[in-house]
């Protein structure tokens, strides 16, 4: 216990990013993510990193993409409205395969919405916010410790898969303070450098694998990078076969690595008749109710999703095949998660518990839902 510190969610994100090797932050203030920018402004200069406050969120993500292209591990932090503004360049990073981390601390929407209250209305925006079929990884912590741990994971996955990673957590998780160990056993993953000489180098040739080795600008490998559909050289192409091949590979590098990317935590599933399924702050409510129900002898389980995208359809299908359990899905939206789950387990009975007033779903609400199912 003694080595735990009282840390706020957004502070844990900063500590995790620095631990993962992040040395570049560009952002624009927005509630409820602003503490991340403030702490980065304080801490990055101390480790020789760069902090920049930009003119808007579009510039913020463009600047960190530039920094990452030059070799830095870079992040920005924002909330729903700013995340919307970042979408075009998030697509650019997906298309050009530039690793970076975007932290979206979610608040009520649409529009200015409810800046100081929690919401999970960005579940789909995090996956499908930008145009085109693009790869993206979305991770979702539900405690301060998980914010720290998954921020490190986010950078590792970004560098490993050469893809933008979104860290998605709601205002409650961002602002609560808990005892946390600011230490991790996760090894830090750094970008792979090309193994061929500059004269033989093709930036987007992936050999037998799916992931390119992009040399940082200024490292002696001169090449062209473009958001246009491109071939292995990086130059634009209008060849239909090359265009399709690129799009398939971009998405396959995530789809074919689902096992490595999909993280979750399961509680008491084996004999479960009812399973709570949640991510973010509703996990906290569900966990309390699940524990109390087990103590009463009720066969209740819980699945906490830590990876939201790619969505763990196969996990849910397997669990349902084994248990035939009913699902209760609490979420701070009209049902974006529940809709996706119904694709995984179309036969399952799903009870939705939705809350859209900015407050957390209470254990009492979930107790009531549980009574209706058992």
């Amino acid at each position, binding site marked *: *216990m*003694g080595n*735990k*510190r*009282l840390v706020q969610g957004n502070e844990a994100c900063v500590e995790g990013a620095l631990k993962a090797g992040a040395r570049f932050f560009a952002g624009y203030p927005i*509630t*409820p993510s602003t503490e991340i920018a403030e702490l980065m402004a304080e801490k990055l200069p101390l480790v020789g990193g760069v902090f920049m406050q930009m003119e808007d969120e579009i510039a913020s993500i463009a600047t960190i993409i530039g920094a990452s292209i030059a070799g830095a591990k870079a992040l920005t932090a924002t909330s729903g409205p700013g995340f919307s503004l970042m979408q075009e360049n998030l697509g650019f990073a997906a298309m050009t395969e530039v690793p970076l981390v975007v932290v979206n601390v979610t608040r009520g929407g649409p529009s200015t919405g409810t*800046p*100081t*209250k929690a919401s999970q209305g960005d579940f789909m925006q995090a996956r499908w916010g930008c145009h085109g079929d693009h790869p993206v990884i979305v991770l979702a912590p539900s405690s301060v410790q998980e914010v720290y741990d998954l921020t490190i994971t986010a950078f590792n996955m970004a560098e490993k898969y050469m893809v933008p990673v979104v860290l998605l957590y709601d*205002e*409650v998780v961002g*602002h*609560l*303070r*808990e*005892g946390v160990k600011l230490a991790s056993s996760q090894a830090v993953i750094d970008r792979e450098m090309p193994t061929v000489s500059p004269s033989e180098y093709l930036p987007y040739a992936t050999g037998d694998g799916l992931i390119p080795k992009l040399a940082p600008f200024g490292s002696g490998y001169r090449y062209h990078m473009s958001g246009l559909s491109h071939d292995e050289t990086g130059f634009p192409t209008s060849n239909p076969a090359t265009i399709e091949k690129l799009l398939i590979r971009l998405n396959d590098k995530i789809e074919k690595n689902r096992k490595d990317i999909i993280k979750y935590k399961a509680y008491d599933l084996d004999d479960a008749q009812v399973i709570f399924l949640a991510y973010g*702050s509703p996990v*906290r*409510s569900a*966990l*309390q109710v699940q*524990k109390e129900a087990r103590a009463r002898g009720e066969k209740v389980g819980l699945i906490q999703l830590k990876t939201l995208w790619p969505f763990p359809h196969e996990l849910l299908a397997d669990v349902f095949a084994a248990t035939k359990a009913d699902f209760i899905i609490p979420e701070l939206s009209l049902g974006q998660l529940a809709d996706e789950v119904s694709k995984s387990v179309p036969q399952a009975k799903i009870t939705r518990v939705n809350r859209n007033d900015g407050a*957390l779903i*209470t*254990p*009492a609400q979930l107790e009531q839902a549980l009574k209706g199912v058992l």
Partner: protein
Amino acid sequence: MNKNWELIISGSGGQGAILAGIIFAEAALANGYNVIQTQSYGPEARGGASRSEVMISHEELAYPKVQACNLMVAMTQESLDKYADMLADDGVLLTDQDIDASALKKSIRVYKAPIFATVEKLQKPMVANILVLGILNTISGIVKPENLSAAIQARVPAATISINLKALEEGIQIGKKLVNA
């Protein structure tokens, strides 16, 4: 004492209720408890009534917000009126001697302390929140006094440490009188 504490510290924006919650959570963490601290944010936290919530338990905590408050500090009439409904029937209230708590259920234990009269005497109104922590911890016995003192020193501006520690000591003395009364 083996019990779960669900603490609310409330006051008007600027009185330091939120910082007091953070400091008390840090002291409880150092004391070996599991803790979660949350607070009200935004326009409502500027002026008006604001609150800091601290969950304190030897068991694992999941749900982060207070469900049945068994320990409340109300530093203003407005904050008491706004949050009184959150107090459990067997809860404890600590408030200033000039605040009217007569509307509360009789089962609630009310401690009235000379909070603002004392900080006026110290000529430092901004240390009221720390004085309150001294009283609160003395009547509840949740953390060791040295853990509270360490948390205060870690979280208040360096230049104000000595006046804050003086406020803490005053609070402890007031708390002792209340307990013995």
